[in-house]
């Protein structure tokens, strides 16, 4: 189990260009596997173009109370990148004028940003249709000052999306750390208690499942059924939907794939499962990702790889809807993670 970020450990994989080197060389350079560009060109889907903006995803900081084995953000308690109130103010201006119907706050643990509550209060006033906070659940139980988060979320009609790798303690704690399962269960019960996740409740509670190792997620609907049955039988917990998300080969997951000698097999599995129908709906075509320091990216993964948007409008302070729409999406081999099988996005399957 990891206890520190790759950045803190001084790993060379903490450098995004080192990760991009790995993804561009080896089996992709020698032609054993086609590059993502080659693959999508087969169905005339290159270059991928951004459509109208629908989802604005804001990463308010990389600090987290957990150090999960496969975190693509390389988040942890030792990460100090935190969005300032000034940058949040700029984001609020964009939220008002962007036309996006969904606002999606992520991290790290977004709740650890000292201005998180202020930002949620201000953003909720804009009246955006779907206001998501990606909560890791354990933060709600991490400290007394977070115990009232379910009530706070309810007050602002926030849509809570939480990670839950498995319905058993063993598999959950192996991936996310000892004690995570019990705390997550308690947090889910707290959320249920205020009305989140209940059948027909407008307080949306969805769970995110991502595999605990070097394999792809199974059928989303079948997994949802298994999660619902087990969580209800064992703990009386209810939730709305399960999003099955594929682990992308970057950051800590890439480090794990290489260390466990699974990298090549995993890339083969992703390429074998390539589904051109998923390409049509990949999230980068309707999403913009904003980093803690206000820069714009096609997705949270490109943010971590430091691949900025291919547009003159590169920062939240010079956000320009017209310039961003129709931009070419920046791609590399990690993109295969979003087009495998039924596809993968922050909202689950796409095909």
């Amino acid at each position, binding site marked *: 189990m990891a206890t520190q970020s790759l950045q803190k450990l001084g790993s060379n994989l903490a450098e995004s260009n080192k990760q991009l080197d790995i993804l561009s060389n080896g089996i992709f350079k020698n032609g054993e596997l086609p590059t993502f560009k080659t693959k999508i060109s087969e169905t005339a889907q290159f270059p991928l173009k951004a459509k109208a903006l629908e989802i604005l995803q804001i990463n308010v900081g990389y600090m987290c109370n957990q150090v999960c084995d496969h975190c693509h953000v390389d988040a942890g308690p030792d990460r100090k990148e935190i969005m300032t109130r000034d940058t949040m103010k700029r984001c609020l201006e964009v939220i008002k004028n962007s036309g996006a119907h969904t606002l999606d706050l992520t991290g790290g643990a977004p709740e650890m940003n000292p201005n998180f509550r202020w930002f949620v209060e201000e953003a909720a006033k804009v009246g955006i249709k779907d206001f998501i906070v990606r909560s890791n659940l354990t933060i709600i139980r991490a400290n007394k000052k977070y115990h009232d988060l379910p009530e706070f979320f309810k007050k602002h009609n926030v849509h809570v999306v939480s990670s839950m790798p498995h319905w058993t303690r063993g598999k959950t704690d192996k991936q996310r750390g000892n004690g995570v399962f019990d705390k997550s269960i308690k947090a889910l019960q707290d959320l249920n208690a205020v009305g989140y996740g209940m059948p027909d409740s407008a307080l949306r509670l969805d769970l995110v499942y991502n*595999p605990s190792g070097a*394999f792809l997620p199974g059928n989303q609907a079948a997994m949802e059924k298994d999660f619902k049955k087990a969580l209800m039988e064992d703990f009386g917990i209810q939730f709305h939907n399960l999003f099955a998300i594929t682990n992308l080969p970057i950051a800590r997951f890439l480090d794990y794939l290489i260390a466990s000698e699974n990298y090549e097999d995993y890339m083969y599995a992703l390429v074998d499962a390539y589904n051109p129908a998923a390409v049509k709906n990949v999230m980068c075509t309707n999403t913009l990702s904003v980093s803690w320091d206000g820069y714009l990216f096609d997705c949270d993964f490109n943010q971590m790889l430091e691949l900025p948007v291919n547009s003159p409008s590169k920062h939240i302070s010079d956000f320009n809807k017209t310039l961003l729409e129709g931009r070419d999406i920046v791609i590399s081999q990690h993109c295969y993670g979003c087009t495998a099988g039924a596809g993968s996005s922050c909202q689950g399957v796409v095909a």
Partner: protein
Amino acid sequence: MSKPYYDAADLRKFGKITEWNEELGTKFFDYYGKVFEEGALTAREKSLIALAVAHTEQCPYCIDAYTKDGLERGVTKEEMMEAIHVGAAIKSGATLVHGVQMMNKVNKLDG
């Protein structure tokens, strides 16, 4: 220089058997795909049966494939181990139940 009989990388080439007999190969893979679809049994239950049989058949490709398939479906290692014990119990039972034949023969010849 000796090469192993089994190469894990060959599993990916399984589909190529169709190249040397398209009709039978295609019929087999259609049938195979249909068998594993959700039916009266869930696809998850079928995956566990396949894992147990993979062991009794001692097919290394099948063991790789259905271990991974089980993980993808959220099957736990405890469930996997129980499933292969079922296979092992039937295997050993099938051996031991023939003991009755031996006993019959002894009783007849040396009773």
